[in-house]
C-alpha cells in the first residue's frame, strides 16, 4: 500500500475499497415515460430528453462522509450494461431490432468539450441555443435544439436537488468543520454546472456533475484534457493564496474516487442489464462489426469489462498553439491517482519533444512503482498523422486526447466509432471456402479452388489480403448504410449540447452534428496474422515442406496429430516482435496494405473520416476464443495477444526488439492508435536507476516513432501470491489492453491468461 498524504484521502480510500465488496443497487431499468398518448407523439429526440429529465428528477442521491465532490452515478458497466427509462414505443423497438438497435445503443467514447462548459455553464449554452432558435426554420433543427435545451434545464435541476440535500444534511451535522464544508458544497451545487465555474473546487464539481449524469444516462464518456481545462481555475486559486498544493490534492483525490464508486469485486454482486442493442452501432446483424458480443459468462468475462466505463483522462503534451502544455496538474492527477491506487479514470500522459525532462522522469518513476498508470502517448507521431494524413487543422490536432481506452480523437469535437477487422478469421475464410471454421458461417470470399494454384508467397498473400479487404469494405459499407439509423432511436441531445459544433450545426452528434466524425478500422489479432503468414511463407514457399492444402487440413484439424509440426511453427519460424527482418517485412507489408485500404475509403467519403489502428482492447481472450487454430502454432480458441503486442511468449529478444519491430511501420498512418502493452519487472537495487532506465526506454520508443505504450510493472511471483492471497493484494493494478483493473478482481481464467505474458526484466 502506498503512503497517503492526508487523513481525508486515507478515509476516502478506505470507504471506497470497502464499497467494492458491497452489492450496488441498479436503478431505473423498469421506468418508462410512455404514460400518455401525447408523449408517444413527441419526437424521439424529445422523448429521450424527457426520459433524461426523469433520471435527473428521480435518480437516487447520496452524500458520503469526508467527500468534497458529490454526486452518485447510477449503476452501469461496459461488461454488464446500463439502465435507462423506456421512451421508445414497442413498434419502434421492433423496427429497430432488425438493425440490432435499441435505446441502449449509445456508443459512448465521445468527449464533452469541458473547456467551454466551465467557461459558460449550461446557462451560456442555453443562451446560444435560444439565440439560434430565434431565426431557425428547419423543424428538424428546432427539434434537436429544443430537446437539447430541455436536457440542460433538467440537468440543472439535478444539481439543485443536491444543493437541497446537502443543505439539509448540513443542518444536522454536528462537526463544525464538516458543516462548513457542506455549506460550501451546497453553494457550489447551487451554482455549477449551470453557471460558469470560478474556482478549482467549482470546476471539479461541475465536471463531475456532467460526467456522472452522462454515465447515468447511457453515455460512457471520457474526460479529455483534464489538466488543460482545469488549469486556469487551479492557477488562479493557487496564485491568489486560496489553495495549497495539498488542498488541491484533497479535492482531486475526492474527485478521482468518484470514478471508482461503481466498482464491484464479487461476480455474484453483478447484475446483467445488457440489451441486444448494447454496443451496437446499427447495421446488418450478420455483419460482425455491427454489434459487439460481450459474452457475459461470469467465469470468463467477469473482471474483463465489468468494472470499466471508458473513463479516461489525458494530461500533458502540447497546447493548441504548439507550445508545451505540461503544468502542475499534469503531475497532480497522476500522483494522486497512484497514491490512492485507483484504476479509474485511466490517465494517459502525452509526451512530446517539448515535454520537460523532469516530467518525463516523473512519469517513468510513477510507472516504476507499478499500477500501470499512466498510458503513454507520443505527440510527434500522433499529431503528424492527424495533420498530415487526416488534414485536421493544427490547433485541433494539438488538442487530441485518449478516449475510452486509448483511441486518439480530438477532444470535445468528435463523434467516434470503430469496427474490429478480425484478421485471423480472414485466414480461416481463405482455407475454408469463405467460411469460419468455428461457426461455419460465410465470413469472406470463397476462393474456390485457387488454393491449389497459389504458387508463390506473393500470390498467397494477395489471396489472403483479398479476404481482409472484403472485411474492411463490408465494415465501411455497413457503417455508411446504417449510420443514420442510430439517430432515429438513440439520439443524444444532452451530450450533443456539450460537443462542438452540434449546436452551431443544429444537429445531434448522432446526426452528423460534431465537427469531426471518425470511424476506425482496427486490425484485431494482428500478431497472430503476421506470425502465421511468416510460418506459411517458410514451410510452404521457402522450405516446401507442405502444400497449402495440407496447411488448410492441419488448421481444420486444430493441429490434431501434428504436435511436432506445431512446435516447429512455434519455435523455428520468424516471429513479429523480435526485430526479425523477415517477420517484420510481412508486418510492414500488411500494415501498409491495411492503411491503404483505410485511406482509400477515407478519400472516397466526404462526411466521415476513416482511420486505421490495431486493437483488441481488453477483449483479446474473447476474440481468440471466437477464432479457430492458426498456423503460428495457436490452438483453436486460444487467446490472442493484446492490441499491437507480439504474440505471448514469442517475443524473445527483449523489449528493445519489440519496439524496433513495431516501429518499422510508419505509425503516423495508424491514426487511431496501436498500443504495445508491456509487462516488466526490475532486478535493480536502486529506484533511481530503474526510473532512469525506464525513462530512457520510453524516450527511445518515442524517438523511434512509437505511438502508444502501456507499461505494467509486476513480476510473476507477485501475481502468483496475489492469486493465492487476494486479500493482501487488493490494490494490485494491471493493464489489460483497454483498461486498468484490480488483478484480484479478475476471474481465475483471466488471471492465468494475464500471467502468461512475457515478463521483460529491467
Amino acid at each position, binding site marked *: 500500500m502506498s503512503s497517503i498524504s492526508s487523513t481525508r484521502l486515507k478515509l476516502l480510500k478506505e470507504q471506497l475499497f470497502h464499497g467494492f465488496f458491497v452489492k450496488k443497487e441498479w436503478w431505473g431499468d423498469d421506468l418508462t415515460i410512455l404514460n400518455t398518448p401525447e408523449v408517444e407523439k413527441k419526437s424521439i429526440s424529445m422523448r429521450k430528453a424527457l426520459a433524461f429529465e426523469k433520471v435527473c428528477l428521480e435518480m437516487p442521491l447520496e452524500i458520503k462522509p469526508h467527500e468534497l465532490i458529490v454526486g452518485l452515478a447510477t449503476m452501469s458497466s461496459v461488461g454488464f450494461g446500463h439502465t435507462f427509462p423506456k421512451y421508445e414505443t414497442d413498434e419502434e423497438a421492433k423496427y429497430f431490432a432488425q438493425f440490432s438497435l435499441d435505446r441502449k445503443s449509445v456508443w459512448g467514447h465521445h468527449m464533452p468539450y469541458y473547456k467551454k462548459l466551465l467557461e459558460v455553464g449550461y446557462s451560456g449554452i442555453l443562451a446560444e441555443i435560444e439565440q439560434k432558435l430565434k431565426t431557425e426554420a428547419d423543424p428538424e433543427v428546432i427539434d434537436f435544439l429544443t430537446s437539447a435545451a430541455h436536457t440542460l434545464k433538467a440537468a440543472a435541476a439535478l444539481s439543485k436537488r443536491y444543493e437541497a440535500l446537502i443543505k439539509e444534511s448540513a443542518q444536522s451535522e454536528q462537526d463544525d468543520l464538516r458543516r462548513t464544508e457542506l455549506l460550501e458544497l451546497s453553494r457550489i451545487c447551487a451554482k455549477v454546472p449551470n453557471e460558469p465555474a470560478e474556482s478549482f473546487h467549482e470546476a471539479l464539481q461541475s465536471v463531475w456533475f456532467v460526467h456522472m449524469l452522462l454515465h447515468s444516462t447511457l453515455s460512457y464518456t471520457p474526460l479529455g484534457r483534464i489538466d488543460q481545462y482545469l488549469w486556469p481555475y487551479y492557477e488562479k486559486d493557487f496564485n491568489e493564496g486560496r489553495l495549497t498544493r495539498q488542498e488541491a490534492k484533497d479535492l482531486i483525490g475526492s474527485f478521482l474516487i468518484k470514478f471508482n464508486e461503481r466498482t464491484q469485486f464479487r461476480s455474484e454482486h453483478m447484475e446483467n442489464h445488457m440489451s441486444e442493442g448494447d454496443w451496437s452501432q446499427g447495421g446488418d446483424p450478420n455483419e460482425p462489426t455491427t454489434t459487439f458480443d460481450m459474452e457475459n459468462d461470469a467465469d470468463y468475462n467477469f473482471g474483463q469489462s465489468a468494472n470499466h466505463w471508458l473513463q479516461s483522462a489525458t494530461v500533458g503534451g502540447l497546447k493548441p498553439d504548439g507550445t508545451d502544455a505540461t503544468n502542475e496538474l499534469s503531475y497532480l492527477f497522476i500522483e494522486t491517482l497512484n497514491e490512492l491506487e485507483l484504476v479509474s479514470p485511466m490517465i494517459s500522459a502525452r509526451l512530446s519533444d517539448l515535454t520537460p525532462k523532469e516530467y518525463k522522469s516523473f512519469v517513468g518513476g510513477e510507472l516504476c512503482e507499478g499500477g500501470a498508470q499512466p498510458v503513454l502517448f507520443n505527440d510527434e507521431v500522433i499529431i503528424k498523422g492527424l495533420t498530415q494524413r487526416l488534414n485536421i487543422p493544427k490547433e485541433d490536432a494539438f488538442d487530441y486526447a485518449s478516449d475510452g481506452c486509448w483511441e486518439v480523437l480530438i477532444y470535445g469535437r468528435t463523434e467516434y466509432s470503430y469496427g474490429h477487422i478480425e484478421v485471423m478469421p480472414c485466414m480461416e475464410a481463405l482455407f475454408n471456402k469463405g467460411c469460419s471454421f468455428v461457426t461455419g458461417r460465410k465470413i469472406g470470399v470463397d476462393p474456390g479452388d485457387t488454393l491449389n494454384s497459389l504458387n508463390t508467397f506473393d500470390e498467397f498473400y494477395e489471396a489472403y489480403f483479398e479476404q481482409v479487404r472484403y472485411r474492411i469494405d463490408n465494415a465501411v459499407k455497413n457503417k455508411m448504410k446504417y449510420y443514420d439509423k442510430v439517430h432515429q432511436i438513440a439520439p443524444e441531445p444532452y451530450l450533443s449540447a456539450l460537443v462542438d459544433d452540434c449546436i452551431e450545426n443544429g444537429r445531434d452528434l448522432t446526426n452528423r452534428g460534431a465537427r469531426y466524425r471518425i470511424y476506425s478500422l482496427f486490425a484485431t489479432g494482428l500478431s497472430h496474422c503476421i506470425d502465421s503468414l511468416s510460418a506459411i511463407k517458410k514451410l510452404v514457399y521457402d522450405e516446401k515442406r507442405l502444400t497449402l492444402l495440407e496447411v488448410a487440413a492441419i488448421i481444420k484439424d486444430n493441429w490434431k496429430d501434428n*504436435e*511436432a*509440426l506445431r*512446435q*516447429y511453427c*512455434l*519455435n*523455428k519460424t520468424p516471429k513479429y516482435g523480435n*526485430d526479425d527482418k523477415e517477420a517484420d517485412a510481412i508486418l510492414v507489408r500488411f500494415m501498409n496494405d491495411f492503411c491503404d485500404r483505410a485511406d482509400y475509403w477515407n478519400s472516397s467519403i466526404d462526411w466521415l473520416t476513416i482511420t486505421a489502428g490495431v486493437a483488441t482492447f481488453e477483449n483479446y481472450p474473447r476474440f481468440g476464443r471466437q477464432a479457430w487454430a492458426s498456423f503460428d502454432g495457436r490452438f483453436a480458441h486460444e487467446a490472442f495477444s493484446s492490441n499491437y503486442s507480439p504474440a505471448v511468449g514469442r517475443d524473445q*529478444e*527483449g*523489449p*528493445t*526488439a519489440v519496439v*524496433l519491430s513495431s516501429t518499422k511501420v510508419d505509425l503516423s498512418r495508424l491514426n487511431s492508435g496501436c498500443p504495445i502493452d508491456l509487462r516488466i519487472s526490475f*532486478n*535493480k*537495487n536502486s529506484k533511481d536507476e530503474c526510473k*532512469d*532506465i525506464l525513462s*530512457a*526506454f520510453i*524516450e*527511445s520508443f518515442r*524517438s*523511434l516513432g512509437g505511438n502508444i505504450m502501456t507499461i505494467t510493472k509486476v513480476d510473476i511471483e507477485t501475481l502468483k501470491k496475489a492469486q493465492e492471497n487476494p486479500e493482501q493484494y487488493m490494490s494490485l493494478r494491471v493493464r489489460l489492453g483497454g483498461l486498468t483493473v484490480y488483478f484480484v478482481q479478475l476471474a481465475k481464467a483471466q488471471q492465468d491468461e494475464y500471467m502468461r505474458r512475457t515478463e*521483460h*526484466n*529491467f
Partner: protein
Amino acid sequence: MKNNEETVLGTVLDIERFSVHDGRGIRTVVFLKGCPLKCGWCANPESQQLKPQIGFFRDKCAACMKCAEICPNGRLFKEQGKLDFLNCTGCMKCVDACYYGARIQYGRQMSAAEVVKIVKRDKVFYDNSGGGVTLSGGEMSMQPGFALNILKGCKSEGIHTAVETCGYSNWEQFSKILEYVDMLLYDIKHMDSSIHKAKTGVLNALILENAIKAAPLVKEMIIRYPVIPGFNDSLDNALALARFMKAKLKGVKRVDLLPYHSMGLSKCERIGKPYPFTLPYELSTEKVQQLYELLKAEGLDVTIGG
C-alpha cells in the same frame, strides 16, 4: 587489412539485448566463447569451451527421437533425446532437427561486422540511457583479434564500449583491446595466488599485474568481486582486495559484489557436464553486508549486484 577484419570469424555464445546489469544504461552484451579459467561455480559453464557445443533442455523434449534419426552417429542417443556428449562431433544436425526447441546450439561463427550490425540496432536505446555494448564471455580475450574488431567497429559507430574480463590474458593483446574500451569491468576473484590456482586453475599474478597496467589506460574501471562461499568470502580476502586497489589501482574506486547464485548448476546439466562446485554453506545476506561494510569503510564505492 579491412578485408581481413571482415572475414575473421569468431565464436559467439550469445548476443543478449536489453541487458541492464553489465555496465551502465541499456546495453547489448556479446558473450564470446572460451575461457582460460575453470571456476567450478561458473554461472555460464556453456561459455568455457571455445568450440560450439550442444545444449539440451530436457523439459522441452517430447522424445520424438528425430535427433537420433538425423545424427550421423545415431547410437549416441539412447533415451529421451539424451545425447552422449563425450562422443558428439558438434555437427549440429540434431539442433536443426529438433522442432521442440529442446536442443540449442551454444556458439556460432560470426564475423565482427555481423556482430556490430546487431549491436547497432539498439543504438537509440544506448544514446538515451547512456548505455552501449558490453563484451563478455567466457573470456573475450581468448579471441583477441575478434574482440578487438568488434570493439573497433562499435567505437566507429559511436557506441560506448564496456568489457568484462577475468584479466588472464597476454598483455600485448590485451592492451590493444583496451584502446577501444570506455569501461573495464575487471574480475578479481582471490588475492591469494595459491588458493586462486586451486579453484580457478591459474595463478592470480598475471591478473593482478594486468589490472595495475590497465587502470591508467581506461576511462573507467570497476572491480567485480564474485562472492563465492568458502572460497573468497572471508573478510581477510576483502581487506586484501581493498588494500590492493588503494595501493595499486590509482583512480579505481568502485567494486561490485556479485553474490553467488546456482544458475550454473542447471546449465551444466544441459551440456552434459557434472557441476564441479559443492556449496559448503548458503551465502547469507548478512555476510554480503559485512563485506559491503568492510569495503565501504576502506573508502571504496561498493554496490551489491553491480
